[in-house]
């Protein structure tokens, strides 16, 4: 049996939740699908306060933003149907989805689809990088802040972008010793405010340094680091050993575009946006009509941008299905302006460059 649904949103993180809200406000029925037992995506583990403007809940902790967005969606029980514990297994031509809902297999015929699947953490190549105890930094954040479990007692963080810095601080809040944050680039990647917080607590952030190998029998017991020269080559004799029981890898995220690829949406490799990303119109529609993508699934940015992109995709996809939000024009204009502001300044440079590479389709949004 095939179930018929109008708008299906895959992923109930910041972007998917915002898309669902805007669709419901437009009067559009939605099926919101998430593979996790809890909605909220990665917000549910983010105990830090957000930056940006109040429109994207700046100065609010991610965990509280999640509650707010989930409440927004639950305000529309007649319009928004929620499937949690549901993994979308495949997307097929004519917008057919196959879903593992709990333990049952379902087929859904959609009229439009918004893919808000988020991103996955990148891995780093080094000897024994598969030893248990070597985790993605986001995984450790989930383990600590959602489930209240420490990943280890002594840890080294690999990568000094915002995730690496924030998770290091949160590890210390959980009582874990952070021996060092190492960064292969010659400069710290994340915001100075996050780096300074760590440095004030006595954590070394070592630049031009990377992990060479991990050691241990059935789990990581120590790691060897090495310094790098200006050509990013190892400098012999600079190896240092750290006794650890866990290692965090925070070297960036890749958009989860598997479902889009399966459907045949055109993807482009844009390193500034995290890897393979979908080619999109100004309305966040992919090269397949009626299929939309937003949030980290479309380009790696902050959660704030993911929310705003979700709002836009929710509005445009609903419009496509004949449900136009009463304030459509004003909202779209406002959201596009918000994105412009979020992407301004030196930290938005990479995003602006990446988006420009996408043949200008989203420039100026």
């Amino acid at each position, binding site marked *: 049996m095939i179930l018929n649904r109008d708008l299906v949103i895959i992923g109930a993180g910041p972007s998917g939740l915002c898309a669902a809200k805007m669709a419901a406000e437009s009067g559009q029925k939605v099926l919101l699908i998430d*593979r*996790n*037992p809890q909605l909220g995506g*990665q917000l549910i583990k983010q*105990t830090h306060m957000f930056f940006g403007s109040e429109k994207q809940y700046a100065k609010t*902790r991610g*965990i509280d933003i999640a509650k707010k967005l989930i409440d927004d969606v639950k305000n529309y029980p007649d319009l928004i149907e929620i499937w949690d514990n549901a*993994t979308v297994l495949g997307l097929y031509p004519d917008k057919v989805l196959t879903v593992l809902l709990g333990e049952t297999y379902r087929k859904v015929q959609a009229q439009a689809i918004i893919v808000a699947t*988020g991103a*996955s*953490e990148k*891995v780093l190549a080094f000897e024994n990088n*598969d*030893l*248990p*105890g*070597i*985790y*993605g930094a*986001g*995984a*450790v954040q*989930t*383990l*600590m*802040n*959602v*489930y*209240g*479990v*420490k*990943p*280890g007692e002594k840890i080294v963080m690999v990568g000094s972008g915002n995730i690496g810095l924030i998770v290091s601080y949160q590890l210390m*809040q*959980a*009582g874990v010793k952070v021996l060092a944050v190492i960064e292969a680039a010659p400069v710290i990647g994340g915001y100075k405010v996050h780096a300074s917080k760590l440095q004030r607590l006595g954590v070394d952030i070592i630049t031009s340094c990377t992990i060479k190998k991990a050691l241990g029998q*059935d*789990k990581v017991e120590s790691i060897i680091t090495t310094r790098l020269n200006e050509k990013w080559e190892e400098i012999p004799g600079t190896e240092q050993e750290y006794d650890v029981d866990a290692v965090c890898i925070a070297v960036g995220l890749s958009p*989860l575009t598997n479902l889009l690829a399966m459907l045949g949406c055109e993807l482009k490799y844009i390193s500034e946006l995290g890897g393979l990303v979908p080619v999109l119109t100004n309305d966040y529609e992919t090269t397949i009509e009626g299929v939309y993508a937003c949030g980290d699934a479309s380009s790696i940015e902050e959660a704030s941008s993911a929310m705003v992109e979700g709002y836009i995709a929710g509005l445009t996809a609903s419009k496509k299905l004949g449900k136009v939000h009463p304030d459509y024009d004003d909202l779209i204009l406002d959201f596009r302006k918000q994105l412009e502001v979020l992407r301004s300044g030196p930290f938005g440079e990479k995003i602006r460059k990446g988006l420009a590479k996408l043949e200008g389709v989203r420039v100026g949004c």
Partner: protein
Amino acid sequence: MMRIKEHPILDFTKERKIIRFTFNGQEVFGYEGDTIASALSALGVKQFSTSIKHKRPRGFYCAIGNCSSCHMIVDGVPNVKTCITLLKEGMKVETQTNKGVLYDLK
């Protein structure tokens, strides 16, 4: 014990229901709200599976149901993503050392 007791922002002191399960035949427990992976991690278990060919030890990596590194056999069903599967009373959790074999669907 790897459970966080004190935290400046989050409250982990609330009393939670104990959930009993077995790990490779041994009787252990976690708490209501745990995933299988978080319960095992709290017990200090790091290895969840082995790689298929070289049988290298594997733990979880992403904790969001994406990387497949946390697959285990749960109640006889292989390839269960233990990082996003909630722990239930009486679950039988086993280390997975192959790519999984067909099981009888109930």
